[in-house]
């Protein structure tokens, strides 16, 4: 019996570890060593956190923690406002750095560091800066900093660390040619032509301190970043798994339109990365964190009924689709691509997977985009029509095995996607299987699959592409313009779709100022993409965030940003 228990423990332990989402290691000597290392590391982390919290909570503070802790779903990639392309980075950065303009939670753009902005003509923007704005090191922000910030983004190879490279945010402000200083508090921005979405896209650029950056370089800057925002940097874990910020008492108050205009309410903020949704929720329930990002749809109802927890949703800005390689069979036939659109029951997915908190995409743009083509309706769920179109294209079940085939080839493909889209991708694949297409799902790392996608080596890819500016620019040219290396055009074009007329319209739309004219241009472009269906246009889910009820004055933003400036922590 004793032996039985020995065995039981030896076996149950690894299996239980597996259950607890931890992969067991070999119960040999090396494993002991490894575990020890793990424990030591954990202890170090705990100690560091304790130290930070002690430092931030002054003895005069109200009872209860006055440092707000936010759980992010992914780690930020950088704390340099000019050197990232991720929403998580921007969420953290925009609590430390302010821009010329900012956006409220309902997509209105407001002046922040800029006091006044005037278009002198169609392509010259004069910006008057607010006076008395200081960086966290006490130096006043002037026109030099603004000129430096934009030059660092638009000029080639301005970021020298780790290797000289051009800012990945250049594409977000591509038409900006140069920035001139007029006087200490005035700059002029020269664009290469009319650029309608300038205001919406300027929100995504933040001002950095010239003097400090020139002194410490990019490497020194990302180790200890300094901005003009409501929070200043204290420390960060390697890999930015945790970023600790402290209130900046010298803050000018932020956008005057967005009350309250004063330094931040809480004494500090900690951004902690918890990749797994259920762990994030558990951390919120345990009171370890105050706000969590990306609440999975399954948990929204449960969480909102939990006492002490509030769940809020914002309209989404991450439309999702399955792009199909238009240059490879079987998807080189437009009838097949349309059939794929008819085969997916978007309403069922919205109802069952997203609990009704999503809308079907009417076409290549989100229905909330300012220039969506209002005459387009989402492809209806019509499996019969799908089969009809497939039969026209030559795909029928001629050998009676339940799968479609053509010239002896079975209709079979791999649907590539990322782990985060698992349930959507599997549901979509299952709907293809229902009409006799052998679809299987494969999960990738984005950095690995992206190269293959742009090279046209994959067949079908499901993912999303943010359009937080609510303008076709930043989005349309990335997904549906032919791919051109080194330009923003087609940088996310994973279907290898390349229609000269659409390309032409996209370029035209970027430089047309008249809204009616612009609408016409984008209407035509959307209609073309809709008809040629380089993708199965899927859905746009709402963004849901949850917080403890201690968190006051908090509202999730559609662009995914969590602005902690106005947020207070109650008792």
């Amino acid at each position, binding site marked *: 019996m004793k*032996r*039985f228990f020995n*065995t*039981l423990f*030896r*076996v*149950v332990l*690894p*299996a*239980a570890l*597996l*259950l607890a*989402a931890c*992969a*067991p*290691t*070999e*119960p*040999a000597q*090396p*494993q002991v060593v*490894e575990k020890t290392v793990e424990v030591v590391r954990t202890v170090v982390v705990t100690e560091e956190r304790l130290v930070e919290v002690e430092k931030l909570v002054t003895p005069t503070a109200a009872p209860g923690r006055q440092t707000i802790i936010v759980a992010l779903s992914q780690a930020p990639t950088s704390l340099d406002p000019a050197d990232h392309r991720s929403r998580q980075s921007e969420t953290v950065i925009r609590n430390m750095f302010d821009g010329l303009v900012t956006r409220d939670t309902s997509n209105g753009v407001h002046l922040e560091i800029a006091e006044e902005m005037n278009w002198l003509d169609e392509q010259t923007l004069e910006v008057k800066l607010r006076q008395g704005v200081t960086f966290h090191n006490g130096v006043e922000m002037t026109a030099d900093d603004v000129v430096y910030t934009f030059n660092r983004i638009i000029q080639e190879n301005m970021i020298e660390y780790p290797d000289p490279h051009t800012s990945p945010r250049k594409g977000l402000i591509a038409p900006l040619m140069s920035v001139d200083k007029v006087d200490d508090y005035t700059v002029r921005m020269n664009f290469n032509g009319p650029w309608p979405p300038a205001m919406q896209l300027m929100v995504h650029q933040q001002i950095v301190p010239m003097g400090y950056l020139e002194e410490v370089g990019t490497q020194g800057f990302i180790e200890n970043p300094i901005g003009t925002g409501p929070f200043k940097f204290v420390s960060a874990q390697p890999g930015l798994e945790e970023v600790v910020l402290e209130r900046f008492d010298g803050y000018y108050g932020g956008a005057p339109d967005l009350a309250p205009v004063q330094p931040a309410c809480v004494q500090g903020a900690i951004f902690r990365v918890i990749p*797994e*949704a*259920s762990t994030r*929720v*558990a951390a919120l329930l345990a009171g370890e964190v105050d706000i969590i990002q990306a609440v*999975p749809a*399954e*948990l929204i109802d*449960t969480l909102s009924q939990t006492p002490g927890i509030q769940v809020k949703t914002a309209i989404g800005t991450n439309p999702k689709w399955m792009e199909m390689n238009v240059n490879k069979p079987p998807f080189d036939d437009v009838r097949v691509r349309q059939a794929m659109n008819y085969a997916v029951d978007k309403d*069922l*997915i919205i109802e*069952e*997977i997203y609990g009704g908190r999503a809308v079907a995409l009417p076409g290549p743009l989100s229905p909330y985009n300012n220039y969506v083509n209002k005459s387009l309706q989402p492809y209806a769920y019509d499996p019969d029509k799908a089969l009809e179109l497939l039969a026209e294209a030559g795909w029928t079940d001629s050998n009676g095995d339940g799968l479609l085939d053509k010239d002896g080839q079975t209709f079979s493909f791999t649907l590539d996607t990322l*782990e985060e889209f*698992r*349930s959507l991708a*599997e*549901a979509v*694949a*299952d709907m293809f*299987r*229902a009409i006799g297409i052998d679809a*299987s*799902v*494969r*999960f990738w790392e984005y950095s690995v699959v992206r190269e293959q996608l742009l090279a046209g080596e994959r067949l079908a890819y499901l993912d999303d592409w943010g359009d937080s500016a609510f303008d076709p620019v930043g989005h349309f040219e990335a997904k549906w313009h032919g791919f051109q290396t080194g330009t923003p055009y087609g940088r996310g074009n994973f279907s290898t779709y390349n229609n000269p007329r659409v390309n032409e319209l996209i370029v035209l739309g970027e430089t047309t100022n008249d809204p009616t004219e612009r609408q016409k241009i984008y209407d035509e472009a959307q209609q073309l993409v809709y008809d040629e269906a380089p993708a199965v246009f899927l859905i746009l889910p709402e963004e849901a965030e949850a917080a403890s009820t201690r968190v006051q004055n908090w509202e999730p933003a559609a662009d995914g940003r969590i602005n902690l400036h106005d947020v207070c922590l109650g008792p």
Partner: protein
Amino acid sequence: MEATPELETFWQRSAYLWRIRLRVWRHNFTEFLGELRNHPMALLGGLVIILFFIMALFAEQIAPHDPVRGNLRVRLDPPSWIEGGSWEYPMGTDAQGRDLLTRIIYGSRISLLVGVLSVGASVLVGVFLGALAGYYRGWFDTLVSRFADLLLAFPFLIFAIGMMAFLGPGFTNLILALTFKGWVEFYRLVRGEMLSEKTQEYVEAARVAGLSHPAIILKEILPNIIQSVFVLGTLRMGHMIIMEASLSFLGLGIPPSIPAWGSMVAAGRDYMLVAWWVASLPGIAILVLVLAINLFGEGLRDILDPRLKVDV
């Protein structure tokens, strides 16, 4: 007593020898079954293993639903014994509305196949190299032993993760990755046994009788140590199954379209708070099968080779 058979030709002699061998084996097996009665836990383990094998072999006949096709309308339905569950889906459904019982049944195929194939391949490689190295020694022994030491320096899982990341997910690659390190244990066992057996008198006798070296290895020594290999093989099988589950859990093992227990646990962990069964039931399946294999393996060790010290 039977009459002395004709032993004129090679075939006649062979047939005679085989008849005797079979009789010995049958005797040993009957004795083994008798011994098993004194090891109830091993017996239980054996029965559970047989059950899982039957499940895997007749998955098409047993499973109530399709393992791949789902029905979103019934997604995350609870098991039948919980309120809201139905007998239509005895163990509930996963996030795609697929029957969990069906997927667990089909998943046993992958687990058992990986266990048997990876251990089988490891045994082949390990015994072959171990026998040569232990019998002939020399530079071959040094070379292979140092390489084996090198492999032993890596924790198995870390090593397998690296190999799978290099090879890419897939069934064949998984077996390759597991075998690439799995053979070392068998190599060390067989080499060690070889070293001690080599000095035994019966080996010297065989040598004097004029048997060639390969014949001594194959016919004299290996039959004497194959029981230890068998015991170790059984015990390693549970380990290999956990390896496969861990790798599939990490998305590096079996492609997600094929039901495997490890990837089922991985897919279910997002729903832990609302639907615990999606991750837990495949986890329990892993636990039960591995527990059964190890109980059986330990019993086997006690019966066949009490002096062997193998840790699970």
